[in-house]
C-alpha cells in the first residue's frame, strides 16, 4: 500500500515525576512555573509506534498535533527531531482551561481541518491529569473506531491495522479498519532518540508567534518546512461554547495534598505461606474484607 498519513496527538505536561516542594500552589492548583515542561511520556511511546509505522510503510508521513500555550511548540520540535515530518500547534486563549471534553472537541475540530489522514496515534494518558479520556473522545467525536491500551502495531494490511493490546490480565490482538484512533501504553517500546540530521534540519523551525518574538534575531531561510503551523480558534471551525472553560463541565471541588505515611518496606516471600500471611494481615487491618 502507499504511505500512511499518520497524526500523533501529543501534550506538553509538567514533569510530575520530579516534583519538588513548590509543585503545588497554596490554592491547590499546579504550580506550572516550578515544574519543567516535558513531552508526555506515553505520547512518546505513541510517537515511536507512529514512526515505526512510517518506517515499515515507505512514503508515510507523521504529523504532530498539540494544544497548549505558545511554548508547546517545543513538543512539535521534539517530534521533528525524532523523525516526524510536520506539526500543528493549536493555541488560543479561547482553548484555555479546557477539561478532557473541551480538549477532545478542539482537537477533533483540528483533525477535521487536517482532513486527510489514515490513523491517529496518541498516548494512553497524560501524567498531569491521568484521565485517559482525550484519545477515546476524539475517536467518538470524529466517529471512527478506537483501539486503546495498544502496545504494538503488528501489521499493516490493505485498509486495516493489526494491533496488540496489553490488558490487565493478558494480551489481545485486534484488527481495526482505517481510519482509526490508537492509544498507546507506557509498556510499549521507548521512543527512539533524536536524530542528528533531523535536529540540525529542524532546529530553526518556529511558529509565527515565535518568529515575531525573536524579531531581528530570527533569520528567515525561506524554507517552508521550518514553519510550524500555528492555529488559533479562527483557523478551525468550532462552536465557541464548547471550547475552553465554557465547554468544560468538570469542576474541581477540592484538591488534597497526600503525604505518604509508610516508612518501611516489607518483603513477602512469593510462596503459599507468604501469600497466606499477607492475606491474613490485610484482612485483619481491614484493607480487605
Amino acid at each position: 500500500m502507499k504511505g500512511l498519513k499518520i497524526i500523533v496527538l501529543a501534550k506538553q505536561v509538567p514533569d510530575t515525576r520530579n516534583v519538588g516542594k513548590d509543585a503545588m500552589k497554596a490554592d491547590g492548583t499546579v504550580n506550572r512555573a516550578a515544574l519543567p515542561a516535558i513531552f508526555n511520556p506515553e505520547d512518546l511511546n505513541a510517537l515511536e509506534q507512529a514512526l515505526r509505522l512510517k518506517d515499515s510503510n515507505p512514503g508515510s508521513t507523521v504529523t504532530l498535533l498539540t494544544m497548549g500555550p505558545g511554548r508547546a511548540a517545543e513538543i512539535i520540535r521534539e517530534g521533528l527531531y525524532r523523525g516526524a515530518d510536520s506539526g500543528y500547534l493549536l493555541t488560543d486563549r479561547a482553548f484555555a482551561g479546557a477539561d478532557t471534553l473541551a480538549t477532545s472537541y478542539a482537537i477533533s475540530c483540528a483533525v477535521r481541518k487536517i482532513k486527510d489522514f489514515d490513523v491517529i496515534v496518541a498516548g494512553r494518558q497524560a501524567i498531569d491529569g491521568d484521565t485517559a479520556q482525550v484519545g477515546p473522545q476524539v475517536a467518538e467525536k470524529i466517529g471512527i473506531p478506537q483501539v486503546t491500551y495498544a502496545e504494538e502495531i503488528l501489521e499493516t494490511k490493505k485498509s486495516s491495522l493489526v494491533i496488540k493490546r496489553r490488558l490487565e490480565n493478558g494480551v489481545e490482538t485486534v484488527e481495526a479498519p482505517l481510519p482509526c484512533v490508537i492509544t498507546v501504553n507506557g509498556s510499549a517500546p521507548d521512543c527512539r532518540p533524536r536524530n542528528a540530521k533531523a535536529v540540525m534540519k529542524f532546529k530553526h523551525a518556529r511558529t509565527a508567534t515565535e518568529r515575531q518574538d525573536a524579531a531581528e534575531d530570527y533569520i528567515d531561510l525561506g524554507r517552508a518546512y521550518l514553519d510550524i503551523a500555528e492555529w488559533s480558534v479562527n483557523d478551525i471551525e468550532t462552536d465557541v461554547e464548547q471550547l475552553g472553560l465554557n465547554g468544560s463541565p468538570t469542576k474541581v471541588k477540592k484538591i488534597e495534598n497526600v503525604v505518604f505515611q509508610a516508612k518501611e518496606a516489607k518483603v513477602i516471600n512469593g510462596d503459599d505461606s507468604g501469600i497466606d500471611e499477607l492475606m491474613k494481615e490485610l484482612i485483619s487491618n481491614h484493607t480487605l474484607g
Partner: protein
Amino acid sequence: MDNFYIDNPELKFHLTHPLMKKIVALKERNFADKEKFDYAPLDFEDAMDSYDKVLEIVGDICANIVAPNAESVDAEGPELIDGEVKYARGTQENLDALIKAGLMGITLPRQYDGLNFPIVPYTMAADLVSRADASFVNVWGLQDCAETIHEFADEDQKKHYLTRVSGGETMAMDLTEPDAGSDLQAVQLKATFNEKDGKWYLNGVKRFITNGDGHISLVLARSEEGTSDGRGLSMFIYDRKCGGVSVRRIEHKLGIIGSPTCELVFKNAPAELVGQRKLGLIKYVMALMNGARLGIAAQSVGIAESAYREALGYAKEREQFGKPIIKFPAVYEMLSKMKAKLDASRSLLYETARFVDVYKAYMHISEERTLEKEERDEMKLYQKLADMYTPLAKGLSSEVCNELAYDSLQIHGGSGFMKDYPIERIYRDARITSIYEGTTQLQVVAAIRGVTTGGYLKQMREYEAADIKPELQTYRRILIQMTEEYEEAVEKVISVNDNEYIDFHARRMVEMAGNIVMGYLLVLDTNRDSKFWKSLEVFLKIARSENKAKAEMIRFSNINDLGRFKHE
C-alpha cells in the same frame, strides 16, 4: 533525564575553544553546503550550536542506553556462531540506537551522507561513549577507519564505502598477525592479483582484530612477492558481503569484553586495493594509526572520567569511623589528584584533536584546489604538531587512565574488588589502553623526536608567551622553572651522543615534557574559566615533584647506567 554531555561541562568548555573558529571555517569551506543540504550550518555559531545539540543526543544515549547496558555486556560478551560474531545483546542495542540517531560517519563529508563534523566534537562523542562503556567504543568508534578511505581511496570506493559507513555499517582494521604485533613490517597475509578477473585475493591469518567481523575492513597485506619488509605491504578493503573470511576464534580477555577481538582466516577473500601498492604500511597505516591513537586517548579519558566519578560517589557515601571517607586526607588527596590528572589529560586530548583538525581540513582542501603559500605553511605546522602530540596524548592519557582506575578501586576498598561495583569492570577495561594501538613504550619511541629536535620546547615557549590574567603569573613562573629543568636534562642526555642512552631516558624526558605541556594547557584553561583553578594548582604541585624526581635521575646518570640496568 540523565545526560553524560550536560553533566560533564568540561566537554562544552573544550568545544568552545577559540581555535574552533578556524577549524569550522576550514571544515565548512565558507558554509558552501548550506544551499545543498538542509542540515548544513549557516555560519560559525550555527555550526557550534549543531555540535552542541548533537553531543546532547550522544550524552542522552550514553546515559540512558549504553551505560545501563555495560554490566550485562561485560557479563555476556560476544559469541562465535558458525564463523561469525554475534554481539552481546546490549552491544547490539547500543549500536542500533546510535545508528538510528544518525551518529555514524560523523566526520565524513555530507556528499557521503556524513555529518561533516570536525575531529573535536567526534572525539567528544568517543569520550562520552567510553565513559558509558569502554568496550562499546571499539565497535562504534572504528568508524574513524573511514577517514583512511576518505583520504586515500579513489572516488568510486569513497562513494561506495563511505555512504555505507554513514548508514550504520561498522568497520575493522586488520593489521596484526600472530608474528606481527608491534612490528607490522613482518605482516605475512598474502595478497595475490588474479590477471584473469583483475581482482586481488587475500590468504592468511590475522590475529587480535577488534570487531574483526565488521562490515568493511581495511587489511594490511603483502602484495609484493619475495619481499620481507614494510615496503612490500599494501592496503586493501575487504567487504564482508563478498565472503572469504571466517572468524576462527574470539579471544577471552581481561577487559573490554564486549568488544569482539577476533582471529580471522582469509581464504581467497576478494579485496580492493586502496591507493597505491607498497604504501600500505609506510603511508596508509601510519595515518590510520594516528587516528586510532587519538581514539584510544579519547577512550582513556572517558574511562578515567567514569573511574573518577565512581570514586567520588563512593567516597561521599561510604562512612567509616563515623564520617564519610572523603573527609580523610588520604582519600581526598587521591580524589583531587585524580580530578587534576583527568582535567590535564583531557586538555591534552582536545589540544591534539584541534591540531589534527586544522591539518586534515587543509589536506582535504588541497585535493580541491592549490593551497596558498601561507595555507601550505600552516598545514605543515599543524601536521607537525599533530604528529608530535598524538603519541604524547595516547601515551600519557592511557597511563593516567590506569592510574585513576587503580586509585578509584583503592578508594572502594574491599568492595571495589567485588563484582558488585562498576569499578571492577572499569579497572579491567582500563588496562588495555596503554597496550593497544602501540604500547606506551612505543608512543615514547614516536614522541622522543619532539624532545630531541626541540619541538615540545618550542611549543612550551608558545604557551609561555600567551596573554594570561595577572593572577595566573605565579603558575607560569613555576612552569618556566620546570621548562628550564627539562631543557637541562634533555641537553645532558643528548650530549652523551649515544642513541641507546637517549632511549634509556626517553620515557622520563617525554613524561617531563608532557607534564609541562599539560601544566600550560591548564593555565590557559583556567584563564578562560576559573573552574579549572583547583586542578591547575593540584596538577602543578604533583607535576613539579614528578619532574624533579626524573631530573634527579638524569642528573645522577651517566652512560654506565646502560651497563647497570642491562638485564640478560
